[in-house]
């Protein structure tokens, strides 16, 4: 009963808001419907509406899935420095980080569902009801770790919000244990996703030992960027207090991650280009093109340059402490990793294909629509949970408010 009242209260929060809020919701809904009709088309005609073919059998959807797993993993990583450096708003950081992780995991699962040929047959890969190929298949591991991570984050965030809502003390032991588990789980989900690619000797581009560490490093470069921007916004519009020093510290940690990422990439490049075996072909296609095919060269170099600029901006203390350049850097590193995880990871793995043939892939209109639908759903969900969190944590929206009629006043100010 209590929980249902909490849910009811939350629903009430998200149904009321300012004009900008409604405009944003309608914008997202329009995108969802537009994307949804595209996906419906794909459901009826089949995946032939995408531009994936036998040679490039994984592309836009799986690229987005990989990127979002990184976001989900990184969101929780901020908990460590918050704890070590004893930041005041650590509870809020945990909540927002975990809610971002929850939304990201939901988007990941949606991307998988739209990618498989028989979405209704999803249950075939589950244990007990289906025949799960555990421990042999990395996808089965991914299923477990994603679900566990999702449940942990959902439980902690909901419990914290619920406790604040009911003005009760949160169960310290439960929350701390779960939060401490979620940190290695965060490493776990991205490692398992990297192992998904790593497991295939047929694809030499992915069959490098450094793939999982590179995944993690790029996730930690980019994931905190969203929270960095979010916290600045929250600082402006709510009573959320986070010192500039904390924000600079986040940026500094991102620099370390970026440096490690650069180091790993240089190691990969050295091994391939110095050894000069046939496997260089994939890196060549990525960076220089093969023959007449130069399709993704522009993307790979833009990703590299954006990443380097962001690295420099974060590295130099002057630009790090200047909020304008800091935010530019955050956007740049985010875009860089998005391009890198999507295009620069998946496509060269399949081009040239195992029999040496080159198929040029670009996302089809249907794929873009479907991805828009999923991203909009994710943004919508994230908007809702952020609104609920802001109301409960900063606006004093709690059980008393519902009980008394102060409700009206609060809602009109949101």
């Amino acid at each position, binding site marked *: 009963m209590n929980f249902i009242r909490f849910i009811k209260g939350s629903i009430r929060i998200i149904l009321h808001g300012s004009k900008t809020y409604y405009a944003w919701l309608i914008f997202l809904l329009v995108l969802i419907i537009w994307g949804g009709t595209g996906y419906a088309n794909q459901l009826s005609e089949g995946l032939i509406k995408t531009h994936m073919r036998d*040679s490039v*059998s994984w592309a836009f959807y799986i690229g987005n899935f990989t990127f979002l797993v990184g976001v989900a993993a990184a969101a929780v990583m901020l908990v460590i420095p918050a704890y070590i450096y004893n930041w005041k708003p650590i509870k809020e950081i945990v909540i927002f980080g975990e809610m971002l992780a929850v939304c990201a995991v939901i988007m990941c699962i949606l991307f998988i569902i739209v990618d498989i*040929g028989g979405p209704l047959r999803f249950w075939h*890969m589950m244990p007990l009801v289906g025949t799960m*190929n555990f421990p042999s298949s990395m996808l089965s591991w991914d299923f477990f770790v994603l679900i566990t991570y999702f449940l942990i984050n959902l439980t902690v965030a909901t419990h914290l919000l619920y406790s604040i809502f009911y003005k009760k003390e949160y169960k310290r032991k439960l929350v701390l244990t779960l939060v401490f588990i979620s940190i290695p789980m965060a490493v776990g989900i991205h490692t398992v996703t990297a192992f998904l690619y790593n497991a295939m*000797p047929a694809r030499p581009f992915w069959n490098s030992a450094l793939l999982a560490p590179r995944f993690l490093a790029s996730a930690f470069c980019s994931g905190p960027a969203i929270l960095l921007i979010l916290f600045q916004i929250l600082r402006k519009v709510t009573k959320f207090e986070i010192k500039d020093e904390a924000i600079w510290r986040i940026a500094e940690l991102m620099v370390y991650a970026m440096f490690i990422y650069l180091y790993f990439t240089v190691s990969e490049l050295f091994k391939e280009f110095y050894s000069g075996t*046939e496997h260089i072909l994939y890196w060549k296609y990525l960076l220089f093109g093969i023959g007449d095919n130069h399709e993704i060269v522009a993307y790979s170099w833009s990703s590299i340059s954006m990443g380097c600029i962001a690295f420099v901006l974060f590295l130099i203390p002057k630009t790090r402490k200047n909020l304008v350049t800091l935010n530019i850097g955050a956007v740049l590193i985010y875009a860089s990793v998005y391009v890198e995880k999507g295009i620069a990871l998946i496509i060269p793995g399949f081009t040239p294909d195992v029999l040496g043939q080159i198929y040029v892939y670009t996302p089809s209109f249907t794929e873009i629509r479907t991805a828009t639908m999923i991203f909009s759903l994710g943004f919508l969900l994230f908007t809702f949970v952020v609104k609920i969190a802001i109301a409960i944590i900063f606006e004093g929206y709690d059980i008393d408010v519902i009980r008394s009629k102060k409700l009206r006043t609060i809602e009109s100010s949101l």
Partner: protein
Amino acid sequence: MEKNKSRRSFLKNISLATFSALSLAGCNMKEIDEFLQRNFKIMSKKEKDEIVRNLELKYKEKYNKEFHVSDAPAMDGVSFGYALDLSRCIGCRRCVYACVEENNQSREPQIQWIQVLQMEKERGVDFAHSDVHYNPEKVPEEGHFYVPVQCQQCENPPCVKVCPAKATWKEPDGIVVVDYNWCIGCRYCMAACPYGARHFNWGKPEIPEKEINTEMHYLGNRPRMKGVVEKCTFCIQRTREGRYPACVEICPVGARKFGNILDPESEIRYILENKRVLVLKQELNTQPKFYYFFGV
């Protein structure tokens, strides 16, 4: 007040019950059965027989012909091996189209289980410089040789290792099969196959009615549906009856050889013992059962 409440909730419940009963009756029980069908490997003989029978009825309804779907198990003491003579293949692609017809592959969108690569004699077996779209007037072209590639039925198949739903497995006679009713279409196996042997039904497969082959095996050449993976099965519907695969029989130059490796008198054994044999991408340790040799 309370009486109204109980009447309201009673009406609600009874309408809900009627609705569910109607929808249950309206649903095609066969479709529900097919949806809830289990993995082929864990079904009992009775269940398999029933499914095969339902399939035959379904295909008969759709294509208006008598069908025979077999679920013959592997023969004892048999391990299939295949050998292809690289010194003889002229790249005529007759095998490709014989396979398409025998195995009911979709013509539109086109699926071909066998891919013939044209390579240069100077470079040897070099995939990066091969061409699958060669189309000269006559074959063989001067200075080139031909390497047809299809499922290698590996002993250590990477596709079986990665399938999350166990929809693909290696049968006792060595054939790696796919249960088309169980495959969820995630295409992990396609990414994992080093030989590009697995193909996906991106769209709804179309087979012209008069070209359909009615002699089928559940794990082999029965018509597939969109969203599942398919591949060469060494013509399981033929080989489990003692016949040769269609590609072996059509090859005009006799470049293709097939048999039971465990039979010391088979031609495949003779080749393995007497000819210079190689496999593709040997360093990946997939241990293919598809050998390439040089007859001359």
